[in-house]
Protein backbone atom coordinates (compact mmCIF):
# COMPACT_ATOMS: atom_id res chain seq x y z
CA UNK A 1 0.00 0.00 0.00
CA UNK A 2 2.81 2.36 0.94
CA UNK A 3 4.57 1.50 -2.28
CA UNK A 4 1.48 2.48 -4.27
CA UNK A 5 1.17 5.78 -2.42
CA UNK A 6 4.81 6.64 -2.98
CA UNK A 7 4.47 5.81 -6.62
CA UNK A 8 1.43 8.05 -6.96
CA UNK A 9 3.27 10.87 -5.18
CA UNK A 10 6.26 10.49 -7.46
CA UNK A 11 4.05 10.57 -10.52
CA UNK A 12 2.27 13.65 -9.27
CA UNK A 13 5.57 15.35 -8.61
CA UNK A 14 6.84 14.52 -12.06
CA UNK A 15 3.67 15.97 -13.53
CA UNK A 16 4.12 19.25 -11.66
CA UNK A 17 7.80 19.41 -12.56
CA UNK A 18 6.93 18.92 -16.20
CA UNK A 19 4.47 21.76 -15.98
CA UNK A 20 7.07 23.98 -14.34
CA UNK A 21 9.69 23.18 -16.95
CA UNK A 22 7.23 23.96 -19.69
CA UNK A 23 6.32 27.23 -18.05
CA UNK A 24 10.00 28.12 -17.77
CA UNK A 25 10.06 28.65 -21.53
CA UNK A 26 7.62 31.51 -21.28
CA UNK A 27 8.66 34.51 -23.34
CA UNK A 28 6.74 37.76 -22.92
CA UNK A 29 4.97 39.11 -25.96
CA UNK A 30 6.73 42.42 -25.48
CA UNK A 31 10.38 42.67 -24.70
CA UNK A 32 11.63 44.93 -21.95
CA UNK A 33 11.83 48.57 -23.05
CA UNK A 34 15.19 50.28 -23.15
CA UNK A 35 16.15 52.43 -20.23
CA UNK A 36 13.68 50.83 -17.89
CA UNK A 37 15.88 51.24 -14.83
CA UNK A 38 16.75 54.84 -15.66
CA UNK A 39 13.07 55.71 -16.08
CA UNK A 40 12.18 54.01 -12.80
CA UNK A 41 14.89 55.88 -10.93
CA UNK A 42 13.87 59.18 -12.52
CA UNK A 43 10.28 58.57 -11.49
CA UNK A 44 11.42 57.72 -7.99
CA UNK A 45 13.36 60.98 -7.74
CA UNK A 46 10.38 62.95 -9.03
CA UNK A 47 8.08 61.30 -6.50
CA UNK A 48 10.56 62.10 -3.72
CA UNK A 49 10.62 65.76 -4.74
CA UNK A 50 6.85 65.82 -4.99
CA UNK A 51 6.60 64.41 -1.48
CA UNK A 52 8.68 67.32 -0.23
CA UNK A 53 6.46 69.81 -2.02
CA UNK A 54 3.41 68.00 -0.76
CA UNK A 55 4.61 68.42 2.80
CA UNK A 56 5.01 72.15 2.37
CA UNK A 57 1.61 72.39 0.73
CA UNK A 58 0.07 70.43 3.59
CA UNK A 59 1.53 72.87 6.11
CA UNK A 60 0.16 75.85 4.18
CA UNK A 61 -3.27 74.31 3.74
CA UNK A 62 -3.36 73.33 7.41
CA UNK A 63 -2.49 76.86 8.48
CA UNK A 64 -5.16 78.32 6.24
CA UNK A 65 -7.69 75.86 7.60
CA UNK A 66 -6.81 76.83 11.17
CA UNK A 67 -7.22 80.52 10.40
CA UNK A 68 -10.60 79.88 8.77
CA UNK A 69 -11.69 77.77 11.72
CA UNK A 70 -10.66 80.48 14.16
CA UNK A 71 -12.58 83.11 12.17
CA UNK A 72 -15.66 80.92 12.01
CA UNK A 73 -15.57 80.25 15.74
CA UNK A 74 -15.11 83.92 16.49
CA UNK A 75 -18.04 84.85 14.28
CA UNK A 76 -20.16 82.17 15.91
CA UNK A 77 -19.46 83.31 19.46
CA UNK A 78 -19.85 86.94 18.52
CA UNK A 79 -23.28 86.21 17.10
CA UNK A 80 -24.35 84.48 20.24
CA UNK A 81 -23.55 87.45 22.42
CA UNK A 82 -24.90 90.24 20.20
CA UNK A 83 -28.47 90.43 19.11
CA UNK A 84 -28.29 93.50 16.90
CA UNK A 85 -25.63 93.24 14.31
CA UNK A 86 -25.75 96.76 12.96
CA UNK A 87 -22.66 98.78 13.83
CA UNK A 88 -24.45 101.76 15.37
CA UNK A 89 -27.21 101.26 17.85
CA UNK A 90 -28.93 104.30 19.20
CA UNK A 91 -29.97 104.40 22.78
CA UNK A 92 -33.71 104.07 22.70
CA UNK A 93 -35.60 107.05 24.08
CA UNK A 94 -37.73 106.58 27.14
CA UNK A 95 -40.96 105.86 25.40
CA UNK A 96 -44.38 106.65 26.64
CA UNK A 97 -46.83 104.97 24.35
CA UNK A 98 -48.50 108.17 23.26
CA UNK A 99 -45.57 110.53 23.15
CA UNK A 100 -43.09 108.40 21.30
CA UNK A 101 -41.51 110.40 18.47
CA UNK A 102 -41.86 108.85 15.11
CA UNK A 103 -38.50 108.60 13.40
CA UNK A 104 -38.64 108.56 9.67
CA UNK A 105 -37.93 105.02 8.63
CA UNK A 106 -35.98 104.70 5.47
CA UNK A 107 -36.98 101.07 5.21
CA UNK A 108 -40.04 99.27 6.52
CA UNK A 109 -39.57 98.34 10.11
CA UNK A 110 -39.57 94.74 11.11
CA UNK A 111 -40.43 92.81 14.19
CA UNK A 112 -37.52 91.15 15.82
CA UNK A 113 -37.85 88.34 18.26
CA UNK A 114 -34.60 87.75 19.99
CA UNK A 115 -33.81 85.04 22.40
CA UNK A 116 -31.01 85.30 24.83
CA UNK A 117 -28.79 82.37 25.46
CA UNK A 118 -29.84 80.34 28.42
CA UNK A 119 -28.93 81.97 31.62
CA UNK A 120 -26.85 80.18 34.12
CA UNK A 121 -29.06 78.39 36.53
CA UNK A 122 -30.79 80.43 39.13
CA UNK A 123 -29.75 80.36 42.68
CA UNK A 124 -30.94 77.09 44.05
CA UNK A 125 -34.14 77.19 46.01
CA UNK A 126 -32.73 75.97 49.26
CA UNK A 127 -35.02 75.23 52.13
CA UNK A 128 -34.38 73.75 55.45
CA UNK A 129 -35.52 70.16 55.34
CA UNK A 130 -34.51 68.89 58.72
CA UNK A 131 -38.10 68.10 59.53
CA UNK A 132 -38.37 65.60 56.67
CA UNK A 133 -37.63 61.95 57.44
CA UNK A 134 -34.35 60.61 56.22
CA UNK A 135 -34.41 58.19 53.27
CA UNK A 136 -34.33 54.49 53.99
CA UNK A 137 -30.77 54.09 52.78
CA UNK A 138 -29.59 56.83 55.12
CA UNK A 139 -31.39 55.31 58.07
CA UNK A 140 -29.95 51.89 57.30
CA UNK A 141 -26.42 53.21 57.37
CA UNK A 142 -26.98 55.40 60.35
CA UNK A 143 -26.58 58.63 58.42
CA UNK A 144 -28.26 61.83 59.35
CA UNK A 145 -31.17 63.32 57.48
CA UNK A 146 -30.38 65.70 54.60
CA UNK A 147 -30.16 69.29 55.64
CA UNK A 148 -31.78 70.92 52.66
CA UNK A 149 -33.81 70.36 49.56
CA UNK A 150 -33.25 72.31 46.41
CA UNK A 151 -34.75 72.66 43.02
CA UNK A 152 -32.93 73.46 39.84
CA UNK A 153 -34.65 75.61 37.25
CA UNK A 154 -33.61 76.91 33.89
CA UNK A 155 -35.14 80.20 32.92
CA UNK A 156 -35.37 81.20 29.28
CA UNK A 157 -36.12 84.80 28.53
CA UNK A 158 -37.83 85.80 25.31
CA UNK A 159 -38.03 89.39 24.14
CA UNK A 160 -39.85 90.97 21.20
CA UNK A 161 -39.12 94.39 19.85
CA UNK A 162 -38.81 96.57 16.80
CA UNK A 163 -35.63 97.42 15.00
CA UNK A 164 -35.95 100.62 13.02
CA UNK A 165 -33.22 101.73 10.66
CA UNK A 166 -32.64 105.45 10.90
CA UNK A 167 -30.06 108.17 10.50
CA UNK A 168 -28.19 109.67 13.39
CA UNK A 169 -26.84 113.23 13.30
CA UNK A 170 -23.37 113.50 14.76
CA UNK A 171 -21.97 117.03 15.07
CA UNK A 172 -18.38 117.52 14.09
CA UNK A 173 -16.84 120.16 16.33
CA UNK A 174 -13.73 120.71 14.28
CA UNK A 175 -15.38 121.30 10.94
CA UNK A 176 -18.57 122.64 12.49
CA UNK A 177 -20.67 120.34 10.44
CA UNK A 178 -23.13 117.58 11.13
CA UNK A 179 -22.56 114.07 9.87
CA UNK A 180 -25.41 111.68 9.25
CA UNK A 181 -24.61 108.12 10.10
CA UNK A 182 -26.81 105.05 9.70
CA UNK A 183 -28.11 103.55 12.91
CA UNK A 184 -30.69 101.14 14.22
CA UNK A 185 -33.25 102.01 16.84
CA UNK A 186 -34.16 99.13 19.09
CA UNK A 187 -37.53 99.44 20.82
CA UNK A 188 -38.39 96.46 22.99
CA UNK A 189 -42.12 95.82 23.11
CA UNK A 190 -42.69 92.66 25.06
CA UNK A 191 -40.68 90.30 27.20
CA UNK A 192 -41.46 87.01 28.80
CA UNK A 193 -39.81 84.06 30.39
CA UNK A 194 -40.41 80.37 30.68
CA UNK A 195 -39.12 78.15 33.45
CA UNK A 196 -37.94 74.67 32.94
CA UNK A 197 -37.38 72.29 35.83
CA UNK A 198 -34.26 70.25 35.42
CA UNK A 199 -35.94 67.11 36.68
CA UNK A 200 -39.01 67.20 34.49
CA UNK A 201 -37.50 68.83 31.38
CA UNK A 202 -40.91 70.41 30.74
CA UNK A 203 -41.24 74.10 30.18
CA UNK A 204 -43.91 76.33 31.56
CA UNK A 205 -45.77 78.73 29.30
CA UNK A 206 -44.15 82.01 28.57
CA UNK A 207 -45.01 84.42 31.34
CA UNK A 208 -45.18 88.02 30.27
CA UNK A 209 -42.89 90.36 32.08
CA UNK A 210 -43.22 94.09 32.46
CA UNK A 211 -42.30 96.25 29.55
CA UNK A 212 -38.66 96.97 29.87
CA UNK A 213 -36.91 99.24 27.53
CA UNK A 214 -33.53 97.94 26.96
CA UNK A 215 -31.06 98.46 24.27
CA UNK A 216 -28.71 95.76 23.35
CA UNK A 217 -25.44 96.99 22.09
Amino acid at each position, binding site marked *: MKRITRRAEAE*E*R*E*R*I*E*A*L*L*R*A*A*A*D*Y*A*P*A*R*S*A*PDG*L*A*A*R*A*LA*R*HSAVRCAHGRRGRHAVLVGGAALVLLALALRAHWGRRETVVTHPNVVQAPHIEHQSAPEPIPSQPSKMVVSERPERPQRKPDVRIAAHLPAPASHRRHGLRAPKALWRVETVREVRAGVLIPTWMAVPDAEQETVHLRPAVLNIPLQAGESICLAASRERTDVKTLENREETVK
Partner: protein
Amino acid sequence: LSELEPEIELVHRALAGEEAAFAALCTRSQARLWRTVASVAYGPDVDDLAQEAIVRAYCALRTYRFEAPFAAWLCRIALNVAHDYQRSGWRRRVRFWQETPDAQVEQTEHPEHLLAQREMQRRVRQAVAALPVRQRVPIWLHYFEEFTLAEIARLECTAESTARSRLQAGLRRLSFSLEDLRAGSLEARERTPSEVKGCQI
Protein backbone atom coordinates in the same frame (compact mmCIF):
# COMPACT_ATOMS: atom_id res chain seq x y z
CA LEU B 1 29.59 51.48 -17.48
CA SER B 2 31.41 48.44 -18.69
CA GLU B 3 29.53 45.18 -19.12
CA LEU B 4 32.47 43.32 -17.70
CA GLU B 5 32.66 45.29 -14.52
CA PRO B 6 32.18 42.98 -11.54
CA GLU B 7 28.77 42.91 -9.99
CA ILE B 8 30.05 43.52 -6.48
CA GLU B 9 31.88 46.64 -7.60
CA LEU B 10 28.70 47.98 -9.16
CA VAL B 11 26.72 47.25 -6.00
CA HIS B 12 29.30 49.13 -3.92
CA ARG B 13 29.11 52.09 -6.23
CA ALA B 14 25.32 52.00 -6.12
CA LEU B 15 25.47 51.92 -2.35
CA ALA B 16 27.65 55.00 -2.49
CA GLY B 17 24.79 56.78 -4.25
CA GLU B 18 25.69 56.33 -7.90
CA GLU B 19 22.41 55.77 -9.68
CA ALA B 20 24.08 54.88 -12.97
CA ALA B 21 25.74 51.89 -11.34
CA PHE B 22 22.42 50.67 -10.02
CA ALA B 23 20.83 51.18 -13.44
CA ALA B 24 23.61 49.10 -14.98
CA LEU B 25 22.97 46.34 -12.46
CA CYS B 26 19.29 46.34 -13.26
CA THR B 27 19.92 46.36 -16.99
CA ARG B 28 21.92 43.15 -16.64
CA SER B 29 18.96 41.42 -14.98
CA GLN B 30 16.30 43.24 -16.93
CA ALA B 31 15.20 40.23 -18.97
CA ARG B 32 14.55 38.12 -15.86
CA LEU B 33 12.78 40.99 -14.17
CA TRP B 34 10.58 41.67 -17.16
CA ARG B 35 9.71 38.02 -17.63
CA THR B 36 8.73 37.74 -13.98
CA VAL B 37 6.29 40.63 -13.97
CA ALA B 38 5.04 40.05 -17.53
CA SER B 39 3.87 36.55 -16.68
CA VAL B 40 1.57 37.91 -13.99
CA ALA B 41 0.36 41.30 -15.26
CA TYR B 42 -1.20 42.51 -18.49
CA GLY B 43 -0.88 45.61 -20.58
CA PRO B 44 0.58 48.79 -19.10
CA ASP B 45 0.72 47.21 -15.66
CA VAL B 46 3.80 45.26 -16.72
CA ASP B 47 5.82 48.44 -17.15
CA ASP B 48 4.55 49.82 -13.85
CA LEU B 49 5.38 46.63 -11.98
CA ALA B 50 8.87 46.43 -13.43
CA GLN B 51 9.56 50.02 -12.44
CA GLU B 52 8.14 49.43 -8.98
CA ALA B 53 10.37 46.43 -8.51
CA ILE B 54 13.41 48.48 -9.50
CA VAL B 55 12.47 51.28 -7.13
CA ARG B 56 11.88 48.80 -4.31
CA ALA B 57 15.26 47.25 -4.94
CA TYR B 58 16.90 50.67 -4.98
CA CYS B 59 15.31 51.59 -1.66
CA ALA B 60 16.28 48.25 -0.11
CA LEU B 61 19.75 48.06 -1.57
CA ARG B 62 21.35 48.28 1.87
CA THR B 63 19.75 44.96 2.80
CA TYR B 64 21.61 43.14 0.02
CA ARG B 65 24.18 40.90 1.68
CA PHE B 66 26.42 39.94 -1.26
CA GLU B 67 25.87 36.24 -0.53
CA ALA B 68 23.58 35.41 -3.43
CA PRO B 69 23.72 36.72 -7.00
CA PHE B 70 22.24 40.16 -7.41
CA ALA B 71 19.97 38.84 -10.16
CA ALA B 72 18.40 36.36 -7.73
CA TRP B 73 17.90 39.10 -5.17
CA LEU B 74 16.29 41.40 -7.74
CA CYS B 75 14.18 38.57 -9.07
CA ARG B 76 12.88 37.83 -5.60
CA ILE B 77 11.83 41.46 -5.21
CA ALA B 78 10.09 41.38 -8.59
CA LEU B 79 8.32 38.20 -7.57
CA ASN B 80 7.08 39.82 -4.38
CA VAL B 81 5.86 42.80 -6.38
CA ALA B 82 4.03 40.44 -8.73
CA HIS B 83 2.51 38.62 -5.76
CA ASP B 84 1.29 41.91 -4.27
CA TYR B 85 -0.16 42.83 -7.64
CA GLN B 86 -2.05 39.55 -7.81
CA ARG B 87 -3.58 40.20 -4.42
CA SER B 88 -4.33 43.87 -5.02
CA GLY B 89 -7.85 45.18 -5.35
CA TRP B 90 -6.95 46.78 -8.68
CA ARG B 91 -6.03 43.39 -10.10
CA ARG B 92 -9.21 41.81 -8.80
CA ARG B 93 -11.51 44.50 -10.15
CA VAL B 94 -9.89 45.43 -13.47
CA ARG B 95 -9.25 42.91 -16.19
CA PHE B 96 -7.25 43.95 -19.20
CA TRP B 97 -7.77 42.46 -22.57
CA GLN B 98 -5.17 39.88 -23.17
CA GLU B 99 -2.20 40.90 -25.17
CA THR B 100 -2.51 40.60 -28.89
CA PRO B 101 -0.56 37.72 -30.35
CA ASP B 102 2.86 38.73 -31.41
CA ALA B 103 4.27 38.27 -34.86
CA GLN B 104 6.03 35.06 -33.90
CA VAL B 105 2.74 33.41 -33.03
CA GLU B 106 0.99 34.63 -36.13
CA GLN B 107 3.62 33.24 -38.44
CA THR B 108 3.33 29.69 -37.17
CA GLU B 109 1.07 27.10 -38.64
CA HIS B 110 -0.90 26.55 -35.46
CA PRO B 111 -1.24 29.90 -33.74
CA GLU B 112 -4.13 28.74 -31.56
CA HIS B 113 -1.97 25.95 -30.21
CA LEU B 114 0.81 28.37 -29.34
CA LEU B 115 -1.64 30.76 -27.73
CA ALA B 116 -3.05 27.95 -25.60
CA GLN B 117 0.45 26.99 -24.57
CA ARG B 118 1.25 30.58 -23.59
CA GLU B 119 -1.87 30.78 -21.50
CA MET B 120 -0.94 27.52 -19.83
CA GLN B 121 2.51 28.85 -19.03
CA ARG B 122 1.05 32.01 -17.58
CA ARG B 123 -1.37 29.97 -15.53
CA VAL B 124 1.44 27.89 -14.03
CA ARG B 125 3.55 30.98 -13.31
CA GLN B 126 0.64 32.76 -11.68
CA ALA B 127 -0.03 29.72 -9.51
CA VAL B 128 3.58 29.79 -8.35
CA ALA B 129 3.43 33.52 -7.71
CA ALA B 130 0.38 32.97 -5.53
CA LEU B 131 2.21 30.56 -3.22
CA PRO B 132 3.42 31.66 0.24
CA VAL B 133 6.72 33.50 0.14
CA ARG B 134 8.76 30.64 1.57
CA GLN B 135 7.65 28.32 -1.19
CA ARG B 136 7.29 30.58 -4.19
CA VAL B 137 10.82 31.98 -4.06
CA PRO B 138 12.62 28.61 -4.21
CA ILE B 139 10.29 27.24 -6.88
CA TRP B 140 10.44 30.33 -9.05
CA LEU B 141 14.16 30.82 -8.83
CA HIS B 142 14.96 27.14 -9.24
CA TYR B 143 12.63 26.14 -12.05
CA PHE B 144 12.11 29.39 -13.95
CA GLU B 145 15.35 31.29 -13.41
CA GLU B 146 17.60 28.24 -13.01
CA PHE B 147 19.40 29.20 -9.84
CA THR B 148 20.82 26.36 -7.83
CA LEU B 149 19.47 25.36 -4.46
CA ALA B 150 22.73 26.47 -2.84
CA GLU B 151 22.31 29.98 -4.23
CA ILE B 152 18.68 30.07 -3.14
CA ALA B 153 19.63 28.90 0.33
CA ARG B 154 22.22 31.68 0.59
CA LEU B 155 19.65 34.20 -0.59
CA GLU B 156 17.13 33.03 1.97
CA CYS B 157 19.74 32.67 4.72
CA THR B 158 18.79 29.05 5.31
CA ALA B 159 20.36 25.65 4.97
CA GLU B 160 20.20 23.95 1.62
CA SER B 161 18.08 21.17 3.09
CA THR B 162 15.58 23.75 4.29
CA ALA B 163 15.36 25.25 0.85
CA ARG B 164 14.82 21.77 -0.59
CA SER B 165 12.04 20.93 1.85
CA ARG B 166 10.33 24.26 1.14
CA LEU B 167 10.53 23.54 -2.54
CA GLN B 168 8.96 20.13 -2.05
CA ALA B 169 6.18 21.62 0.08
CA GLY B 170 5.53 24.13 -2.66
CA LEU B 171 5.33 21.37 -5.25
CA ARG B 172 2.77 19.53 -3.12
CA ARG B 173 0.70 22.69 -2.85
CA LEU B 174 0.96 23.29 -6.58
CA SER B 175 -0.33 19.82 -7.32
CA PHE B 176 -3.63 20.88 -5.79
CA SER B 177 -3.87 24.27 -7.46
CA LEU B 178 -2.89 22.90 -10.87
CA GLU B 179 -4.89 19.74 -10.60
CA ASP B 180 -6.84 20.41 -13.78
CA LEU B 181 -3.71 20.78 -15.92
CA ARG B 182 -2.10 17.76 -17.43
CA ALA B 183 1.50 17.61 -18.39
CA GLY B 184 0.59 16.01 -21.71
CA SER B 185 -1.52 18.94 -22.73
CA LEU B 186 1.49 21.17 -22.59
CA GLU B 187 3.62 18.91 -24.73
CA ALA B 188 6.60 19.78 -22.68
CA ARG B 189 9.56 19.70 -24.92
CA GLU B 190 12.56 17.60 -24.08
CA ARG B 191 15.26 19.72 -22.53
CA THR B 192 18.93 19.29 -22.99
CA PRO B 193 20.90 17.84 -20.05
CA SER B 194 22.48 21.21 -19.40
CA GLU B 195 19.02 22.79 -19.03
CA VAL B 196 17.74 20.02 -16.84
CA LYS B 197 20.80 20.17 -14.58
CA GLY B 198 19.56 23.25 -12.82
CA CYS B 199 16.24 21.64 -12.08
CA GLN B 200 17.50 18.54 -10.35
CA ILE B 201 16.48 18.39 -6.72
